[in-house]
């Protein structure tokens, strides 16, 4: 049959145009808050960021200068400890739920993870206060790490589970069929196949807890001075931002903006770095 090319009707073209327009609008609306927040942070904060801000500890009111070096280092330490606790436990629980769990116990674990995900962060802070801070008799960086780590677990566990369930069973069979022991097949084939999504889940959890303030109030507590000791109170960016933002001093307000900008940059850099490092050697991109 000879093909006759007919002009597409005006209604169809308009409808097409309209829907493409709407989806572009939706995409822009999603980007807008992030752009606005980041833009405003840069506008307010960039002026106060200088070498002193990044290398000095806070100065008393009235003295110029001073910075958040101790809070930046403190946040990095707390987040590091939190990740050391939360990432392996979260991934482990996810692997259990997706690969090894059967019956009631797995449902219990899944339910617990979902409930834990919904617990207000301040409650996690209080719980860690009771479990770690009271026995230790003082606030500590470690307890802050524990609080953030606990908050990371459910998100990571559930995303790990979902990502593993998306790996086709034929992949597991292929690995077992080669005589690879079960544990190795799970870790180096199934988990590796799902690694992209698992890492995204871990990064989401990391980014979420990086800005948490409430659980740190009862645990890391904050500190105006240099400290690198895990068993002592330590400064953290969110606490410092909070303290400075509610103060009546203009100089501290400016520093709070700068601290918030640094916090966001820290998260973006960490997420980007993990992406770059973990994408090496994986073939997922040019599949």
């Amino acid at each position, binding site marked *: 049959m000879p093909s006759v090319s007919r002009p597409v009707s005006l209604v169809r073209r308009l409808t097409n145009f309209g829907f493409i327009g709407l989806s572009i609008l939706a995409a822009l609306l999603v980007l807008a808050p992030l752009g606005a927040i980041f833009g405003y942070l840069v506008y307010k904060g960039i002026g106060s960021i200088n070498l002193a801000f990044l290398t000095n500890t806070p100065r008393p009111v009235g003295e110029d200068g001073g910075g958040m070096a101790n809070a930046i280092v403190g946040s990095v330490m707390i987040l590091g400890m939190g990740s050391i606790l939360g990432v392996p436990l979260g991934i482990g629980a996810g692997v259990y739920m997706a690969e090894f769990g059967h019956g009631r116990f797995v449902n219990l674990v899944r339910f617990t993870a979902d409930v834990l995900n919904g617990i207000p962060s301040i409650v996690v802070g209080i719980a860690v206060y009771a479990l770690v801070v009271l026995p230790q008799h003082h606030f500590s960086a470690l307890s802050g790490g524990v609080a953030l780590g606990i908050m990371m677990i459910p998100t990571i566990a559930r995303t790990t589970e979902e990502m593993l369930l998306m790996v086709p069973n034929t992949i597991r069979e292929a690995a077992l*069929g*080669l005589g690879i022991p079960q544990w190795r097949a799970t870790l180096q084939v199934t988990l590796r196949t799902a690694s992209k999504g698992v890492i995204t889940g871990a990064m989401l959890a990391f980014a979420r807890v990086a800005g948490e303030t409430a659980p740190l109030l009862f645990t890391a507590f904050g500190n105006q001075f240099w400290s690198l000791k895990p068993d002592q109170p330590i400064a953290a960016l969110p606490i410092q931002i909070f303290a400075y933002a509610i103060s009546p001093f203009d100089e501290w307000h400016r520093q709070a903006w700068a601290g918030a900008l640094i916090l966001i940059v820290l998260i973006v850099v960490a997420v980007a770095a993990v992406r770059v490092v973990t994408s090496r050697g994986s073939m997922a991109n040019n599949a």
Partner: protein
Amino acid sequence: MGVGIEVKDLNAWFGKAQVLKEINIKVGANAVTAVIGPSGCGKSTFIRCLNRMHETIPEARLTGSVQVGDMDVYRPGIVPADVRRRIGMVFQKPNPFPTMSIYDNVSAGLRLNGYNKRRELDAAVEHSLRMAALWDEVKDVLKKKSGSSLSGGQQQRLCIARALAVQPELILMDEPCSALDPISTGKIEELIFQLKAQYTVVIVTHNMQQAARVADHTGFFLMGKLIEYDKTEKLFTAPTDKRTEDYITGRFG
């Protein structure tokens, strides 16, 4: 070198449904044996019982004995992974590991069993890919391209190479061509024919012409039972059982 198989009184279940009933069969070394039969007759389950893949499905169980070469596959205390290392398997749908390069796919069975000597791995990868007639097509992109970037037929030959790399004594193929076009199917059949010089091959197939083309012996399964097992030529030209005749002449299935 290939090994023979001897199966005695094999019964297999999924939950309460019995899918294999009293299978007794002897398969010769260095030969291709085809297993044919209608869908759901238990032929896939049968070969999955030979390398202990059957039990990886929840609620699956079996009774009876399987002897592959000098190995009693179901001897208490034997490790299933050791059995599977000696018995390679190629599946219905090509299933290369998607996040691994071609090289990593072929060497996976060796690497994940603890072999790490670079030179030996290189040699094994090249040898296996040559055996699977894929070397010339992929030798320049071994580490650049992922297994899943290949075409369907190439992927299946990659999976065959991956199975060959661990140097099994027996190769099981579960409808290896059912997802492939005729040209790729032809290549794989030619490959199967060459493999029997060094390996024993058991192939499940839906395609009777394929069985006739590649197999020395053919077994016909129906409703979980081995109805007839004979030289391929004999089974297709002068079957002794009425049900075999009905099936191969296309009266059912």
